[in-house]
């Protein structure tokens, strides 16, 4: 294991903790020190809870010393995306409207983490209410890509991806509505999984689009990600859409790492034109490696994927417009009095607060969704989008009759520069073109690093998609490919990430 505890994988830390060669307090403190040294430059965290993390670490060390049998990840610290409610810790979703709100309850996922004995280091940055692909829509300023601090770390989960790529936590949680776990993983050379819809409880996740949202694990290796997946997942009676079945055997699958005899499909519609040459080159190399490992690769067509983006941008804003209605200043969060109004009415306070508390992208989507659901437009927009959604699910079903898993590049490009797409929402939306179909159909998907693009030296990702409830296939394929790639690179890709110097000045936003 790397003597620098922040460079170790979660699996290595778990082993060392189990063997007693290191304590959770030491591991947690090492990460808190790292955060203090580098987060001024990366801005991954919205809130750091050193005291709480160390208290949890001490508690788990004591339990271990007392001989209690603990979970695999007990003592391994983690960063939590700020979209998940944490009892006693601020939860803002990257929005001004929730500034200062301290939830009175834990999300089910967070409860799982605490019960597993994982100290929570803090809450990670995100695009406001998870709307975006860059974290530039966070009300608290963007996070930065450790590969190039002038570039985006992906979004909405750019806080969690940059935390991992800058070694400020060995693991992080994410949520993925259209790619918010996978695209940030791709642009930072980390790993992230969007599980099958219903595989991880949504209770306590501040909803963006209920029928698309799915929480999942983020790590630096496929095995680490699987270990976290096993902790986060499972049936939750508090979430009606939660799957009542055991968590798929993802850890075993990651350890098996075997693609011999598997049939892998390349999705014709997710590649080619519009995809950066370096991204395509790394993708094709990865596919060749899978063939070398014994997989059979064929091309499959999912013709309705061409309509996925359009359908997604009707369904998501529609649900979001309703989900975000609760932020009205009446019970919690920001409250703003309208200017120049004596004794304002409740409606006036609601309007003024929502005007001041929501950023432009959130307002854009609320307006879109409100329009799409309006009587007279419902059938043409929301209704049609639901039909497209059914067709996309059908495309997946047909594809999975032919192959075991599907693969594509995760995102069409490597990380773009901060500010590059801020004024062009459509260009920003196109970043999720390859990840959105999985959310619409509810199937699981994973992104892992495929290498660095020749033209800019920045990370690219490969996406693996599996049938619903077959999440373990992602891990066996992902781990096999990861092993072959690391052999080829002679080490983990993140070994090449530029060193952040503790002394360098924080970049201005």
């Amino acid at each position: 294991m790397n003597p620098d505890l922040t460079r170790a994988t979660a699996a290595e830390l778990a082993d060392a903790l189990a063997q007693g060669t290191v304590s959770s307090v030491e591991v947690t403190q090492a990460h808190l020190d790292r955060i203090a040294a580098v987060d001024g430059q990366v801005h991954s965290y919205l809130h750091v809870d050193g005291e709480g993390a160390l208290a949890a670490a001490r508690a788990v060390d004591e339990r271990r010393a007392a001989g209690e049998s603990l979970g695999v990840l007990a003592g391994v610290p983690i960063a939590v995306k700020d979209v998940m409610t944490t009892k006693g810790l601020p939860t803002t979703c990257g929005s001004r409207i929730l500034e200062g709100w301290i939830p009175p309850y834990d999300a089910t996922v967070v409860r799982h983490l605490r019960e597993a004995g994982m100290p929570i280091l803090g809450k990670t940055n995100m695009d406001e209410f998870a709307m975006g692909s860059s974290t530039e829509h966070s009300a608290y300023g963007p996070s930065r890509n450790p590969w190039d601090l002038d570039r985006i770390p992906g979004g909405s989960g750019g806080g969690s991806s940059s935390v991992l790529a800058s070694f400020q936590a060995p693991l992080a949680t994410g949520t993925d509505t259209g790619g918010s776990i996978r695209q940030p993983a791709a642009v930072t050379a980390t790993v992230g999984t969007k599980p099958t819809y219903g595989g991880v409880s949504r209770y306590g996740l501040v909803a963006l689009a209920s029928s698309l949202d799915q929480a999942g694990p983020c790590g630096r290796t496929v095995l680490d990600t699987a270990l976290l997946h096993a902790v986060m997942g499972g049936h939750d009676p508090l979430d009606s859409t939660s799957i009542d079945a055991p968590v798929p055997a993802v850890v075993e699958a990651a350890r098996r790492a075997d693609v011999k005899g598997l049939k892998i499909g390349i999705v014709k519609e997710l590649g080619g034109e519009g995809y950066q040459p370096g991204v395509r080159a790394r993708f094709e190399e990865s596919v060749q490696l899978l063939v070398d490992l014994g997989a059979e690769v064929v091309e499959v067509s999912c013709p309705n994927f061409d309509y996925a983006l359009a359908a997604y941008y009707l369904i998501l804003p529609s649900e979001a417009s309703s989900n975000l209605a609760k932020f009205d200043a009446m019970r919690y969060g920001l409250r703003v009095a309208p200017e120049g109004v004596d004794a304002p009415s409740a409606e006036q306070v609601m309007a003024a607060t929502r005007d001041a508390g929501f950023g432009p992208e959130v307002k854009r989507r609320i307006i879109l969704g409100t329009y799409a659901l309006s009587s007279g437009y419902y059938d043409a927009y929301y209704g049609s989008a639901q039909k497209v959604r059914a067709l996309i699910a059908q495309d997946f079903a047909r594809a999975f009759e032919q192959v075991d898993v599907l693969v594509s590049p995760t995102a069409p490009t490597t990380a773009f520069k901060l500010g590059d797409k801020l004024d062009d929402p459509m260009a920003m939306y196109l970043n999720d073109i390859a990840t959105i179909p999985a959310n619409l159909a509810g199937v699981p998907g994973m992104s892992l690093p495929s290498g660095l693009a020749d033209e800019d030296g920045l990370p690219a990702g490969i996406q693996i998609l599996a049938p619903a409830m077959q999440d373990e296939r992602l891990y066996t394929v992902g781990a096999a490919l990861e092993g072959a790639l690391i052999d080829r690179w002679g080490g983990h890709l993140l070994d090449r990430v530029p060193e952040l110097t503790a002394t360098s000045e924080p970049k201005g936003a």
Partner: protein
Amino acid sequence: MSTSITTEAVMDYDEAMARFDPVMGLEVHVELHTNTKMFCGCPTTFGAEPNTQVCPVCLGLPGALPVVNEKAVESAIRIGLALHCEIAEWCRFARKNYFYPDMPKNFQTSQYDEPIAFNGYLDVELEDGSTYRVEIERAHMEEDTGKSLHIGGSTGRIHGADYSLVDYNRAGIPLIEIVTKPMVGAGERAPEVAKAYVSALRDLLRALDVSDVKMEQGSMRCDANVSLRPKVGGDPLSAEQLAVPLGTRTETKNVNSLRSVERAVRYEISRHAAILAAGGSILQETRHWHEDTGVTTSGREKSDAEDYRYFPEPDLVPVAPSRELVESLRGTLPEPPGLRRRRLQGEWGYSDLEMRDVLNAGAVELIEQTVAAGASPAAAKKWWLGEPSRRANAQAQDLVTYAAEIGLTPAHVAELDGLVTSGRLNDSMARQVLDGVLAGEGTPTAVADARGLELVQDDGALEAAVDKVIEANPDVAAKIRDGKVAAAGALIGQVMKEMKGQADAGKARSLILDKLQ
């Protein structure tokens, strides 16, 4: 700022009925008395301290998710079945989106185009014994809102209030909304039909044991839609009349007693008639009913274009009750109130008129329980429809509520009757005992004991009193000897007075007659 309530012109009801044909639609909201709320585990106790029966779900906190209360779904299905509805094989909840401070999520989780129950009817018995069939459009599940309390200002409404308080205890309580199809053909009896429907529905829901159905507490609430169309000929059910298009309707809210249902419908008919007769047109709007003044006032304007942006609730999975469940719930339905009434009337030997009095007094269940406790049906009716009914009416309460509050039970009434039939009390003593029970002095036996009420069983004392009275009234005695038996009444009264009321009047009468014939 105070809202002035202007009195609007109304047309005499009979004149209105001579010119117009009324059409109604009633929407009744019923709070189910499940132990927990519709989508969370919070209790539903009425009258708890504000905001003590709440959790992240029913407060709509960020991240919280709903879970359907299976018991509420079963109640909804039972209501649907009792209303002869079809039960959906598959249906969804939908979000009804609008902003209001007492609605925590700013959408109400309801049902839209996929109600759990639809296409039913309820046969309603009218005062003259005829039956009106109310067609049921749908019964659907939803959650209640919180309750706003507007402080300051003169009207208790949000306009003009200094501030408002919100109690979310009620937010998320399961509601069933029962919507009728347009009720046509009632003619001048429309107000009576409206009241009879709500009353029959209340009886049905009570028999189903799904709700407290207390209109005064808001666990049953009625919105009355009324419209008028020109009258054609004399028969409200003629094909010609039914072919006339419906007029513009108003929706009167806040109608919270059976009497108000009748009065509010009647008022709106008269108000519409005055406007239409003057050449005006009806504004489609919500109206508020004022119990005290007996008028409606304009609420917010409402049009069909009001856009709630309904869409299927993505946080809940569809409700798909198996046919086995539906059939097993059908097996739990109580005897329909109408059939039950006819059966009880037969068993009790009441005339139609007597049964109607009992129904109007809301005393069926009380009498049934009193008879079960051992009283005769005639005595049970006599006692319940006497003083208790009079007092309940005087307090504008229904008899069941009044009796429950005062602590008068069917067992008490049966006990009282037993004291009479056993010969311990006579009728007037029994009335005194009942007064004592109503005054909270205890059970009938305890009251009789405490007040020293007991018929004198010593025939010697009674005979002495009879002799004394005969001696003192020779004229009356002579009349009785001549065969004018009715004159005995005057002597009985004096005997009872001698006995200070503690004698059996029947026994006194037979003694007097024995001595004088």
